[in-house]
C-alpha cells in the first residue's frame, strides 16, 4: 500500500483574464521510506503540486481533477477542519524559502512548539523539552531556541525549520527547495542531516528542487517536471543514468561536474511553455532537438517502464536519442 498516491491530479489558477493550468494530470506514488526528488525549471509547477497535496493552494488555485490519496484517505475531499488536523501531524510541509518562513516577531522556540500545543495539547514545558531534542538532532544549540529568527543565519533557519517539521513525527515530509539559497557547504551539511534523519525515522519525503545534483545525492526516486506535467518518473539511478525523455537527457548534460573529464556542457535554448495557453502535443517540443511532426499532434502517450514512466512521442527511439543527446552539437540552436 502506497503512503501517498496522486491520481491524475490537475490544478488550475484563476487569472484575471483566463486561467493557468499549473499542474496537468500528474500521477505519482510514494511508499514508506521513499525520498522523491521533484525537479524542474522555475515555474514548472513544483510548488503548486505539493501545495495541492495538503490543500494549501492560494485562494485562486483549485484542484480541478484527480485525487490525493494519503493512507487510504482522499485528502482533497476532506473538510477544512479535518484537513487542518492532518497537516503537520501527518504531513509536514517545509515551504520554499525558509528564510522568511519564520515569523519575525516570535522567538524560534515558541514557533517550534506551536504545532505540538495545537495538535497534541502537549504541555508547554514538555514541548520545549522536545524542541531542545529536535535542535540537537539538527545540530543547533538549544540555547538558540530563545532567539528571534533574525538572529539566525540562513543555514540555521533552515535547520530550525527542519527541526520543526519533525516535531510531530509526520509520516511524510515535503520540503520545497530547502537548500536553494544556501552555500554549497551548508547545503551539503543540511542534506546530509536530512538523509540521516530519514534513515532513523523511516519517514518519507518529497524534496523539491531544480538541481538534479541534489536529487542524485539525496533521493531514491525522481520525478522530472516540465510545464506542469511530470514528463519522466522513476528510480534515481534509472532516470539519471539512463534518461528516457530528451529533456532529462539535456538536463543531465547541462550540469557541471567536478568529477571525471571536463565534458562540454549543453544548453537547452528557449523558454518553457506559457501555462496560461493551451498546449497541444508535447510541451517540450519547442525546445527539443529531436522534435518531429508527431510530437506536435494530439496527446502524448505515457510509456511505462520499471518503477516509472515517461511521456515522449519518440519513446521507441530512446536509445538512439540518448546517444545523440550526449553530443553537444545536437543542442546547439538550429
Amino acid at each position: 500500500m502506497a503512503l501517498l498516491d496522486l491520481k491524475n491530479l490537475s490544478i488550475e489558477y484563476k487569472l484575471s483574464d483566463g486561467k493557468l493550468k499549473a499542474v496537468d494530470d500528474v500521477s505519482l506514488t510514494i511508499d514508506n521510506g521513499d525520498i522523491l526528488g521533484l525537479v524542474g525549471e522555475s515555474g514548472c509547477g513544483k510548488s503548486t503540486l505539493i501545495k495541492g497535496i495538503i490543500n494549501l493552494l492560494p485562494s485562486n488555485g483549485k484542484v480541478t481533477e484527480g485525487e490525493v490519496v494519503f493512507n487510504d484517505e482522499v485528502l482533497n475531499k476532506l473538510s477544512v477542519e479535518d484537513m487542518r488536523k492532518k497537516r503537520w501531524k501527518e504531513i509536514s510541509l517545509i515551504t520554499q524559502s525558509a528564510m522568511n518562513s519564520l515569523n519575525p516577531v516570535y522567538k524560534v522556540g515558541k514557533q517550534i512548539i506551536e504545532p505540538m500545543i495545537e495538535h497534541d495539547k502537549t504541555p508547554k514545558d514538555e514541548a520545549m523539552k522536545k524542541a531542545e531534542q529536535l535542535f540537537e538532532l539538527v545540530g543547533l544549540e538549544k540555547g538558540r531556541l530563545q532567539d528571534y529568527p533574525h538572529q539566525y543565519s540562513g543555514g540555521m533557519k533552515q535547520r530550525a525549520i527542519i527541526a520543526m517539521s519533525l516535531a510531530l513525527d509526520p509520516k511524510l515530509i515535503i520540503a520545497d527547495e530547502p537548500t536553494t539559497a544556501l552555500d554549497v557547504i551548508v547545503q551539503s551539511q543540511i542534506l546530509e542531516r536530512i538523509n540521516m534523519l530519514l534513515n532513523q525515522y523511516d519517514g518519507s519525503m518529497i524534496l523539491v528542487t531544480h538541481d538534479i545534483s541534489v536529487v542524485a545525492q539525496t533521493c531514491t526516486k525522481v520525478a522530472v517536471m516540465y510545464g506542469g506535467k511530470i514528463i519522466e518518473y522513476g528510480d534515481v539511478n534509472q532516470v539519471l543514468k539512463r534518461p528516457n525523455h530528451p529533456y532529462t537527457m539535456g538536463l543531465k548534460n547541462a550540469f557541471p561536474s567536478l568529477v571525471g573529464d571536463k565534458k562540454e556542457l549543453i544548453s537547452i535554448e528557449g523558454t518553457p511553455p506559457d501555462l496560461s495557453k493551451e498546449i497541444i502535443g508535447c510541451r517540450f517540443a519547442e525546445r527539443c532537438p529531436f522534435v518531429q511532426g508527431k510530437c506536435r499532434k494530439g496527446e502524448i502517450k505515457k510509456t511505462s517502464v520499471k518503477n516509472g514512466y515517461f511521456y515522449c512521442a519518440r519513446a521507441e527511439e530512446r536509445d538512439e536519442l540518448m546517444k545523440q543527446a550526449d553530443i553537444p552539437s545536437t543542442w546547439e540552436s538550429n
Partner: protein
Amino acid sequence: MRLSKYILKRLVLAFLTLMILVSIVFFMFRVIPGDPVSMFIDSGLDQESQELMLKLYGLDKSLPEQYFIYMKGLFQGDLGNSFTYGKPVLDVIGERFLNTIVLTTTSLIIAYSIAISVGSFLAWHRNSRIDIIGTILALVVRCAPVFWTGMILLSIFAFNLGWLPLGGMVTSGTNFTSFFDKVFSIDFLKHLILPATASALYSMATPTLMMRTSMLEVVKEDYIELAYAKGIPDKKVRRKHAMRTALLPVVTMFAVAAGLAIGGSVLTETVFRWPGMGREIVLAVGSRDYPMAQGAFLFIGFATIMFNLLADILYAYLDPRVSLD
C-alpha cells in the same frame, strides 16, 4: 547603557530641533505686522499707554535682545507672560495642554481600536463587497474636512436633536474641585462625545487603511503559509500571526499620529470651542500674543518630536528585527 545613550542623543537632537523651531517662530512673529497692543487703540489705549505696555512686555527692546531674553527665560522654564491673560504662559498653557491631550487621546484610542479591527477584517475578506465598500468609506471619511464633519455633528446632535451640548468643555457655570473631578464627570463626557467622534472619524481612516494594507502584505508572507501548513486554525493564524505583525506599523503610526493630532487639534477645537492648545494658538496668532503662541508651539512641537521618538523606540521593541540607529 546603550539605549539610554541613544535616547540621550535623540533628546539632544530633539532639543536642538525645538530650539530651531522656537527661533523660527520667534522671528516669524516679529515679522508679522502688528503688535499685541496696537489692537487696543480703539478701545482707549493711547500712544503713551501703548508704549508703556510694550515696555512692560519687553517689546521695546531690540530684536536680538528680546530673543536673548526669551531664550534665557526658556532655559529657566519661563515662557514669558501672556499678553492676553497677563499671567505666565506656562500657567495658561498647562491646562490647555491637558485639555488637548484628553481630547486627542480619547479620539485616538477610539479611532485606533476601531481601525485595527475593521482594517484586519477588511483585509481578511479582501476583494469582497464588504471590503470594497469599507475601503471606499474609509477613504471618503479621511477626505471629509474634520471641521465640516464637526459642524454637521453639531447641527444634528446638538442643535436639532438637542442631545448633546453645542461646544465647550463643560457646561458654563458648573464648578469642579479639580481637573480629574472635571474629566470624570458626566457633563464633561457629554461635551467630549462630539469632538471626540469628529476627530476619531477623521483619524480613523488612515490606520484602517494602513492596517488593511499591512495585513494584506503580511498575509502574503511565507510564515503565514507555514502557519497554515502547521495546521493552525484560521482564527489563530489571523490573530496570532497576521495581526500581531501587521499591527507593528499601525502601532508605530499611533505615536506619530498622536503628535500630528495634537498639532491638528486646531480645527476640532475651533469648531467645538474646546479650550485646548490648538484653539489657543489660533487666538494667540490673531491677537499677536507672541509668548502664548510661541509657548503653545513649543508644547506642540515638543509633543510631536517626543511622539516621533516614542514611535521609533516602540517600533524597535515591538519588532525584534528593527533596531535604532
